């Protein structure tokens, strides 16, 4: 038993990212200008990206290392890129905010990078304990980031106490959810005698629907609940609005994209590669569908009545998780038979959601930095105060709402159409999703309406900092680019999805 060079090579992106985090942390002691930390963080991401690319360019996948604990396939690589993208986006978006309000720049970036290491591990491991450790590695930095706002933001005296409250709530609820997840994993181990997803799948096929199936059912529900917390699916969502609102805004962005993406990456991997959807498709499908319906409906309906933009985005992210669950429900309904495009669209949806959310939060932070306002009505007449910010923000919101032909609409349409084509009860799920899409227009376009039509509270020109302009500008460019070049992204997602379902020899 020894670790080979190949193992280290396969782990090189995570190792590079860890070293980067340590570098940022130690540079924090020596450099005076905190801008250097941002620059190092963002340029340092090139190293892990290069390793991911190098692995990606190397011949045959899937590769596995560390005795099968690490599994590097197209699915993992897709998410690796996505996490690095999130890292770059969050650094850009947070630059001014962290400098102005948090003061401890190095810690914030280092924590974020550590969290990303965990997220990348979550997407690329195929062993339950590793996944659990990776999940905790992802979560712990998040708990600290939520409570990091120690001095209140000017103009909002309660913000520091809300931030501490958010941190405490997050850590307690997170602990509870990971206990539930661990319990589910334990049950799975108890029934199958293995923590390796491949072996679990093999064991499950021989067990079938025997006496263990009730234990399996509990395991399924508990594991789903544990990851459901990370992806903020209803009814495990209740932490999201409070913590999104209380946390420093760049942290909120990071929760809404990194935590959710990692949660989905691991959730889908465990359920599909662990063979759970194959053996218990008939009720697992129902579980996912119910969570999808509840998430979409509750997320969209409650988002309408929010007055705080961060809370609104929290409910929006709950609803978006619901749309993704629709795609996952289709995958669970017909494991191996679900349409390839639908599986690819799940990954593409996540990617586009990440890009769009980074843009939207860049807009929110830009407005908050300039005016101190984070309420929905602070967006009134934004077009008069900063036309570029207004247009960029509006584009992101419209993409989230799924207004064609923007990228958000394309990914939504493909998920829905694929699910529809899978037949059975799925068209009903799609109909509910469509009704929800219509409801969601109320609040997304509501904000756009405020931006363009409502009279501004003040006649002034808002100054948007270069970093935020770049972040918002790049998001807008990325939205437009993905709108036009959606096909390559779908192909990449297709490769990832094929590796995922191909793990157990399910082919199309």
């Amino acid at each position, binding site marked *: 038993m020894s670790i080979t060079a190949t193992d280290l090579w396969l782990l090189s992106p995570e190792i590079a990212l860890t070293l980067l985090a340590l570098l940022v942390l130690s540079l924090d002691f020596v450099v005076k200008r905190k801008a250097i930390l941002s620059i190092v963080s963002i340029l340092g991401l090139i190293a892990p990206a290069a390793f991911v690319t190098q692995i990606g360019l190397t011949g045959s996948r899937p590769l596995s290392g560390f005795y099968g604990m690490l599994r590097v396939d197209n699915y993992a690589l897709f998410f690796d890129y996505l996490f690095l993208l999130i890292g770059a986006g969050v650094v850009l978006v947070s630059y001014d905010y962290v400098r102005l309000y948090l003061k401890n720049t190095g810690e914030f970036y280092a924590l974020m990078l550590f969290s990303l290491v965990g997220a990348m591990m979550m997407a690329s491991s195929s062993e339950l304990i590793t996944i659990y450790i990776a999940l905790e590695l992802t979560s712990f930095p998040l708990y600290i980031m939520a409570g990091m706002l120690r001095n209140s933001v000017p103009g909002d005296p309660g913000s520091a106490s809300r931030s501490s409250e958010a941190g*405490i*709530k997050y850590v*307690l*609820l997170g602990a*509870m*959810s990971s206990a*539930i997840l661990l319990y589910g994993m334990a049950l799975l181990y108890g029934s199958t005698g293995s923590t390796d997803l491949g072996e679990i799948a093999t064991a499950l096929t021989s067990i079938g629907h025997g006496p263990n*199936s*009730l234990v399996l*059912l*509990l395991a399924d*529900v*508990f594991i789903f*609940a544990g990851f459901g*917390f990370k992806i903020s699916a209803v*009814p*495990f969502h*209740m*932490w999201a*609005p*409070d913590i999104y609102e209380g946390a420093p805004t760049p942290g909120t962005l990071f929760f809404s994209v990194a935590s959710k993406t990692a949660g989905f990456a691991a959730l889908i991997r465990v359920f599909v590669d662990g063979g759970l959807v194959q053996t218990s498709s008939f*009720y697992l499908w*129902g*579980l996912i569908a*119910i969570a999808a319906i509840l998430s979409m409906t*509750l997320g969209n*309906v*409650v*988002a*309408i*009545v*929010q007055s705080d933009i961060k809370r609104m985005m929290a409910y929006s992210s709950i609803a978006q998780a619901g749309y993704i669950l629709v795609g996952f429900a289709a995958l669970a309904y017909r494991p191996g038979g679900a*349409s*390839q*495009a*639908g599986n*690819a*669209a799940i990954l593409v949806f996540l990617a586009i959601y990440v890009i769009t959310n980074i843009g939207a939060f860049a807009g929110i932070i830009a407005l908050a930095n300039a005016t101190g306002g984070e309420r929905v009505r602070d967006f009134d007449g934004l*077009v*008069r105060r900063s*036309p570029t910010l207004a247009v960029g923000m509006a584009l992101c919101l419209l993409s989230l709402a799924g207004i064609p032909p923007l990228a958000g609409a*394309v990914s939504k*349409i*493909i998920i829905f*159409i*694929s699910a529809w*084509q899978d037949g059975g009860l799925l068209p009903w799920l799609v109909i509910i999703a469509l009704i929800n899409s219509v*409801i969601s227009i109320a609040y997304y376009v509501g904000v756009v309406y405020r931006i*363009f*039509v409502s*009279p501004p509270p003040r*006649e002034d*020109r808002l100054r948007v900092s270069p970093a935020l302009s770049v972040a918002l500008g790049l998001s807008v460019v990325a939205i437009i680019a993905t709108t*036009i070049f*959606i*096909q390559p992204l*779908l192909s990449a997602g*297709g490769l990832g999805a094929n590796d995922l379902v191909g793990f157990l020899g399910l082919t199309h």
Partner: protein
Amino acid sequence: MSFFVTDIWVIPALPLLAFLLNILVLRPFFDLSNRDKGHAAEAAAAHGAQGHGANTAAGHDEAHGNVGDPEQHDIGHAEASPDDAYVRALDTLDGHIDTPAAIPRALRTAEKTPGGYALVQLVEDAEQHPHHPHGSPTIWARINGYMGILFMGLAFLWSLGLLVALMQNPALQRGETVPIYTWISVAGLRYPIDFYVDSLTAIMLVIVTAISLLVQFYSQAYIEGEEPRGYSRFFAWLSIFSLSMLLLVLSSNFLLIYMGWELVGLSSYLLIGFLAKDAAKPEAGRPSPGAAALKAFVVNRVGDFGFLIGILILFTATGTFVFTDIPARLGPINLALLTVAMILVFCGAVGKSAQFPLHVWLPDAMEGPTPVSALIHAAKMVAAGVYLVARTFPLFHLAGPQALTVVAYIGGFTAIFAASIALVQIDVKRILAYSTISQLGYMFVGLGVADTIGPGIFHLMTHAFFKALLFLGSGGVLLAVSMNQDMRKMGGLATRIPLVAFPFLLATLSISGFPFFAGFFSKDEIIAQTWEHGDYILYAMTLATAFLTAFYMFRLWFLTFGGKGGKFGGLWGGEYRGTVAVKKPDFRVWLPLMILAVPSVFAGFWGWSSVGGNFNAFITGHPLTPAFANPFTSPLTIFGVGASLLGIALAWGMYGLQVVPRNVFVSNPLGRGFATVLWNKYYIDEIYLAFVRYVVMGLSKVASFFIDRRIIDGIINGAGSGVVAFGRGLRRSESGRLQNYGAAIFGGTLVIAAVFFAVVYFGK
């Protein structure tokens, strides 16, 4: 296959590149940053275009507050006190005049202010002032202009190459689908972006790129005088306008054509509202540019709605958007359904091509800068409707005669209807606007009655050239007389600006159908087609329209360029009735006119078999019968030419020689009444307004009272407030208490587990 065909993407790519370089690179990083002042003003103006459009009710008064002072331009919250405007206008004259164009604007405002009359004199003197240095575009803005012109020139050359390639290779003329890009192709969804190239496409490409090129060249001079700060932006919008129209022309399917269609609508909105700082002029019946842009957009929506439904019907019936695939997939066709679908598609054309009853936006669209008017009227927007019908002509044909009859009669009625309104107008650009509506009517008659698209497209082509010339010429006139559009303050301009007048006269002869000019061949062919197909009502309408056209166009000519005391019986020069000195336009104005004069005169020969013309064979593959191919063999031509000459003679008699009294028609009460009706454009705008105000609003009030408040509200409010109350209720579940959250998560997990436990256990 020729590379002109296979690499057809070059043509739309060029204006796209010009647009992107302009708006993303040159304008923000060079043009804006190299201005000594006025970032804010430019940005404010940019958003003013939208602000006005979105909020026109407020938009009318706002220009009071910022006469000729872009620095203080502050849409939306300007306090428009008349005295304030007076003082500011005076300030304006004290040397703060940024642009010559600011002066007429100051004038318009001043005229409305109490005691502002004296100012008018001051202003008219000030009009002789040279440019203020701040009023010039930066060198980078000019580079943007040159770049747009260069790229459009390349696109024109490519189109010309394509046309030649098609002429040499008849096999290519019948159509070739060129795959460009597959947007999405998954799970049975396939949205390809394909171009379709046939001789119709080639002709349209040449027209669009040629006119765009000349208009861009011309715009340099025009926009420098009107709105120098918007120089870069104007060229960016021109590029996107060209791009939209090229996409529309090249598209091989309904999806792409609809995209181009909407982009044309958007870019025309931006361009019509370009001079957003100008105020409305109710005394001249002119709305503000913002209001005009909004009107164009909204009226087009009405037609587009029909178009969209038509597309969706066709898609539902056939499962494809591709023009050439639809006929084969119609299967056992339901002709009635196809007819309905095609009439709905035609609704879109009615909107874009400004046919009755959706013509009301086009005259108002004259508030855009004159080069934009030329583009809209000659090559771009209005041609799109005709092109759409021509492109989908096989479907119209398949649907049976009813759909085409609708096309022909809408066209015929619009032709005579618009021509009659043009008779009494006094605004140069408005007359030309109504003449466009009328000529478009001819094109639809041509498409509707002939069994081929040849005559309609032939007229589209000749019209594009002479109408572009007429509009650019009228722009030259406006530049010469300081943007006054009232013909009563013109006259005798031919001797003062002969370089504008000469090509203008040629175009006037062409549109009037004077023998051997381009318009004669194309128009006469359509008139003759109506007779040949036994449609005598349409024949009478089109013939009468030919007479009216000749009359109002020469009325325009004599009132503007000729008049009493001019040479050749008032034809050339004469008494000038204006007060401002006439300025001679530079070569950037008259050169495009001269170039356009060539096709305006000779393009008709392409359809004249005596000189070897075979336009119809090129477009459709079938030559016309000799009677149409050579108008001089048909006795009908005598009537067409007669109508035209009669109109010219009458106008000459009334306005040139002045031997016929000018009140000959309005001296009796009936004539006077009719003239009033015409002057008010048959009160269509008023009818629409009244319809909206009384019928729509009234009905909605009645409905609101009886149905809405009692029944619908019950349901909707029930549902709506249900959603909101549901949201509020759910929101209350967010108590903020950690214990509750933990209980909910754990409880939720257990409940789900219990439910599934029950299902699995008892379900067995």
